[in-house]
């Protein structure tokens, strides 16, 4: 009983920090997806140079641990801006650095998700689009994307959930999201009640991920009639 009371108490302390988690995550998801889309398109492009550049970018970013990425952005970017543009961005809200780091981190796997989804759509769909006079982009946007979207969704959800949980990264430079808040609560209790704190944290995340799953299955269900997959 005590435990449940404690967990509810911690929930109350953690929930205010959900703002930061959501702001940071949503902005990085939106920006990262756009960047990822661009990258995927670049990787599928005809130009060898572009393909190579995008390939190197994706390889390097995917191999970069979150903590290193945040240090690179938090310390590297101000240096670069100072050196090249002679502007001082040291004073930026630290949340911006987090969003930038997460956007970059998110874009690489997302570009791969999109590339594989795009390639899973039969070539004939693009050809048919071109033959009714649509441009490649129009065909992509109206025919390929909706089909690839459904293929990409489960993987996209994987990445989104991973991103949501990247609290360690925000905390590294002192931005207090839910994970950071949980750590601070534990610390301020001299390390006690960690179980109950993390339980509360896990609960919140679980609810978020359940909501994501729900949305996902709704979209997939609505699309089921349009495709003939091995599913019954």
């Amino acid at each position, binding site marked *: 009983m005590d435990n449940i009371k404690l967990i509810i108490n911690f929930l109350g302390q953690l929930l205010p920090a959900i703002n930061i988690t959501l702001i940071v995550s949503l902005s990085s998801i939106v920006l990262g997806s756009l960047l990822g889309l661009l990258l995927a398109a670049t990787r599928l492009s005809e130009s060898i140079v572009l393909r190579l550049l995008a390939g190197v970018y994706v390889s390097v970013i995917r191999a970069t641990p979150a903590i290193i990425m945040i240090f690179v952005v938090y310390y590297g970017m101000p240096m670069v801006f100072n050196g090249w543009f002679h502007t001082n961005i040291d004073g930026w809200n630290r949340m911006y650095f987090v969003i930038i780091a997460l956007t970059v981190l998110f874009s690489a796997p997302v570009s791969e998700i999109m590339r*594989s989804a795009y390639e899973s759509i039969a070539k004939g769909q693009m050809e048919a689009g071109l033959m009714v006079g649509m441009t490649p982009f129009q065909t992509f946007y109206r025919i390929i994307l909706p089909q690839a979207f459904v293929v990409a969704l489960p993987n996209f959800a994987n990445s989104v959930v991973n991103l949501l949980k990247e609290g360690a990264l925000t905390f590294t430079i002192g931005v207090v999201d839910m994970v950071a808040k949980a750590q601070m609560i534990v610390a301020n209790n001299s390390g006690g009640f960690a179980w109950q704190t993390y339980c509360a944290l896990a609960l919140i995340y679980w609810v978020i991920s359940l909501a994501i799953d729900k949305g996902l299955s709704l979209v997939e269900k609505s699309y089921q009639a349009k495709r003939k997959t091995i599913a019954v």
Partner: protein
Amino acid sequence: MSLNTDFMVKVAQTAIQGVPVTLQIVLVALLISLPIGVLFALIRIYRVKGLQRLVQFYVSLVRGTPIIAQILIVYSAFPSLLNMIIGKAAFSINPIYYAYIVFTFNSIATLTEVFRSALQTVDKGQMEAGLMVGMQPRQTFWRIILPQALISALPNIANATLYLIKNSSLAFIMSVKDITAIAKTEAAFNYNFLEAYLVVWVYYLIICYGAEIIFYLFERYFSKYRRPIKNRTGFNWFPFSIKQPKLEQK
């Protein structure tokens, strides 16, 4: 600010002992979770009664909760429980086994979704054709469906693997000494964490790149039957270029 290069060399030398540990965790987790991921994906796709809800629950729970919370359970609570059953021996279990468990559980959740999406890219007709030449659904699945699904799965398995490689550093909470752990321990004496992290980064770059190459080769192998989008058509499907590029001169 200058970097302590001597220290970096030293870290590089010691941290290399962590490479096999990292690889072990990744390999064990992958090898176990790949088949289970496929199985779970099938349970969800074919809506196996009873099991399907269980799998859905499992995925949302494991995927949705922070790894730290899972480590708490597996590393802290589980051995204490075991202690009550088998006594002190429970405490002499090498912590790397706990790492295997945590990361395998996590990969299973991720890979279930990867395969679920990939398997659904395969046309139903492929399964039907298999059944109609007398193959069992199981045989058709392994020989026809899965190889085709892998094309779309592999880039995402690669994503999951790289994520796993990086996240395996969390095993340090369980006192498993992977690359990051060793580098951090080295840095503890002189607080040169920046240098230590840079060295770690290089190691991850190398390991991840190796993994990427392997996955790329697999992807190429499994997609060999496809009409390549490039080369043979010479056309650019780059969706953002309104202008088509020049055709390739042969």
